[in-house]
C-alpha cells in the first residue's frame, strides 16, 4: 500500500490537491457561504477566462515555447468579432468562429516568427504583444463597444433548475465553454498522436526531429491553438462583461502564466499535466473567492497570491533538486 502511494508523493499535483483540499475545508468551516452551489457557480464563471487561456498556454509551454502576446491576440479577436456582431448580427457560432479564426491567424504569425528566427519565444511574443496591441489601439482609438443584440446579452442557459436556496441555476455560456475547452485539450494532449508529438518536441526537440516529427508543423499548431483559445476566451469575457474594451485584458498574461506554472508545468517544456493546470486555476480562484468571503481587504489578495505562488514554485524546485541529487547517486 505504502509502496503504491510513494510515486504519488513525488507528484506535484498531489501536493497541490492536498493544499486545495485543506483550503476548501478551512473555508467551509470559516464561511458558510463558501460551499454553496451559488458560490461554486460564481467561482467557476469568474475563473472561466483564466481557465480557457491557461489551457492554451499549457499546450505552448509543453511544446517548449511561451506566448506572452495572447492578451493582445484576444483583444483583437474580441474587437473584430464584436464589431461584426454589432454590424450584421449573427449567432454564437459565428461570433466564436470569427474570434477563433482571428486568433489562429495571429497565432500562426507568432509561430512562423518563433520557428524561423530561432530566438527564444518569449522575446518574439513580447515584441508581437507590442505590435498587436499598438495596432489595435491605433485602429480602434481605444473606443469601447457595447449595445450588443439580445441573444448575445442573454447568453446560453442549459438545464435550468431552481435549487433549494431559491435561486435559478443553469449551465451558462462561460461554464459550457470552459468544460468543452478542457475536454478538447485533454483529448488532444492525452489521446492523440499530435499530443504526444507536442510532449516529445518540448522534451527534446532534436530527438523529436530525428524520429520524424515535423517541428514546424507542431509549432504552427500550438501557437494557433493558443490563439484560437485566446479568441474564444475573449468572446466569453465580452459576454460576461457585456462590453468590449480594447485594453481590458492587458496585463493578464502573467496571471495566466502563474496559474499554469502553479500547476507544475515546466518552463523548459515537455513536463506537466492538464490536471495540474486545472488545479492551478482552481487554487487561484479559491484563494481570491475565499479571501473575499472572509472579508479580507482586497489589498491583501495580491500579497497572499504572491506568497502562495512563491511557496508552491519553491517546493517544486526543491523537490526536483532533491530528485536530481538522488538520481546522481
Amino acid at each position, binding site marked *: 500500500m505504502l509502496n503504491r502511494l510513494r510515486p504519488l508523493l513525488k507528484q506535484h499535483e498531489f501536493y497541490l490537491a492536498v493544499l486545495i483540499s485543506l483550503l476548501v475545508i478551512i473555508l467551509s468551516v470559516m464561511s458558510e457561504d463558501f460551499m454553496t452551489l451559488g458560490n461554486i457557480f460564481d467561482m467557476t464563471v469568474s475563473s472561466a477566462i483564466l481557465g480557457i487561456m491557461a489551457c492554451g498556454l499549457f499546450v505552448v509551454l509543453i511544446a517548449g515555447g511561451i506566448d506572452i502576446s495572447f492578451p493582445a491576440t484576444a483583444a483583437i479577436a474580441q474587437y473584430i468579432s464584436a464589431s461584426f456582431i454589432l454590424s450584421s448580427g449573427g449567432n454564437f457560432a459565428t461570433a466564436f468562429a470569427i474570434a477563433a479564426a482571428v486568433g489562429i491567424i495571429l497565432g500562426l504569425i507568432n509561430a512562423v516568427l518563433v520557428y524561423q528566427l530561432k530566438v527564444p519565444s518569449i522575446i518574439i511574443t513580447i515584441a*508581437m504583444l507590442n*505590435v498587436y496591441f*499598438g495596432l489595435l489601439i491605433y485602429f480602434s482609438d481605444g473606443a469601447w463597444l457595447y449595445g450588443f443584440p439580445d441573444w448575445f446579452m442573454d447568453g446560453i442557459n442549459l438545464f435550468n433548475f431552481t435549487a433549494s436556496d431559491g435561486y435559478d441555476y443553469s449551465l451558462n455560456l462561460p461554464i459550457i465553454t470552459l468544460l468543452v475547452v478542457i475536454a478538447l485539450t485533454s483529448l488532444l494532449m492525452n489521446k492523440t498522436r499530435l499530443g504526444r508529438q507536442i510532449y516529445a518536441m518540448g522534451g527534446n526537440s532534436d530527438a523529436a526531429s530525428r524520429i520524424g516529427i515535423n517541428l514546424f508543423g507542431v509549432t504552427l499548431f500550438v501557437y494557433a491553438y493558443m490563439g484560437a483559445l485566446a479568441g474564444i476566451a475573449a468572446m466569453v469575457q465580452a459576454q460576461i462583461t457585456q462590453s468590449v474594451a480594447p485594453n481590458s485584458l492587458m496585463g493578464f498574461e502573467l496571471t495566466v502564466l*502563474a496559474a499554469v506554472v502553479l500547476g507544475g508545468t515546466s518552463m523548459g517544456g515537455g513536463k506537466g499535466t492538464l490536471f495540474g493546470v486545472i488545479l492551478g486555476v482552481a487554487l487561484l480562484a479559491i484563494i481570491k473567492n475565499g479571501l473575499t468571503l472572509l472579508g479580507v481587504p482586497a489589498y491583501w*489578495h495580491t*500579497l497572499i497570491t*504572491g506568497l502562495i505562488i512563491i511557496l508552491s514554485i519553491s517546493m517544486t524546485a526543491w523537490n526536483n533538486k532533491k530528485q536530481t541529487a538522488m538520481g546522481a547517486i
Partner: protein
Amino acid sequence: MQQVLSALTMPSDKNIRYLLVILAAILVMMAATSGGTFFSLTNLQSMSSQMPLLGILALAMAICMLTGGINLSIIASTNACGLVMASIITQAPDSTWMLIAALAAGLVTAIIIGIANGMLIAYVGVSPILATLGMMTFINGLNLLISGGSVISGFPEALLVLGNGTVAGIPMPLILFAVFALGLWGLLEHTPLGRYIYLIGSNEKATRFSGINTQKALVYVYIISSILCWIAAIIMMAKFNSAKAGYGESYLLIAILAAVLGGIHPDGGFGRIIGIVLALVVLQTLESGLNILGVSSYLTMTLWGAILIIFISLQRFRS
C-alpha cells in the same frame, strides 16, 4: 551594404553596426522632415531627460539576462523602493536627515528584494522567470498594502532636482544614467564578478565545476539589479513628484525589448552595455521623432516591436 559599412570602418560588433545604421536612418528622416524642431536644444533636452528611466530599468533587466535569467520584478521593486522612500520623506519634507534616511531605507529595501530573488534562484533552484514572477506579485501586494493604493506626493526640492534639474544644460537623469551605465560597464568588463556573469550565462554548470561560486555570484547579480531599480525609483519619484503602486508597469516588457535590441543574448553570455545605450537612443529618437511628426504613440509602440523583429531577422539571415 556590407562593403559600405566595412569601408567606413564601423565597429566590428555586428549588433552595434545595425543599430548605428537604424539610428542614422532615423536621423536622416528627421532632418529631412522636421530638422529644426527635432535638433533644437529643447527637444534634445527633453529626449535626454526621458530616456534614462527606461535606460536604468533596461540595465537592471540586462544584467540578469546576461546570466541567462530574467527579472520580471523590476517594476514592482522600483515601486516598492519609491513607496518606502516617499512615505519616509513625507514625514518631514524639509529635513535633510530625513531625506538621507529615506534614501538609505530605499537602498535597504532594494537589497532585501535582491537577496530574496537571488536566494530563490540560486539556492532553492527556481527558474528565474518564475521566481521573479512570484516576487513581482508578492511585492505588488506589499506595495498596495503599505500605500493603501493611494498616491504619496510632496517631495523636497533636493530630490526633485534629480528628475528635472540640469547641470550645464545636461539633464540630471542623463547624468545619473551615464554614471550607472559606466559603473556597470566597469563591473562587467573589469572585475572578476563581471567575468563570472558572462561565464554563468554561457554555461552555468561548467562555470560551477571550474571552481566559481555561481550561487553567490547570482545573488550579487540580483542585488545589483535591485539597486538599479532603486536608482530608477529615485528618478521616477523626482519626475512625477509622487509615488504609487502600479506606476510604470508598461516599462517591464519594454525593458526586455530594449535589452534584446541592445544585443543582450536572451539565453545569456553575450551582450555589452554600449549596445544597450545605443538601443535606448534608437528607441528614444524614434519615439520623439514620430511624436513631432504627429504619429500616434500607439503606432510607435507597434514600431518598437516591429524594429526588434526586423533586427532579429537581420542578424539571423545575414549570418
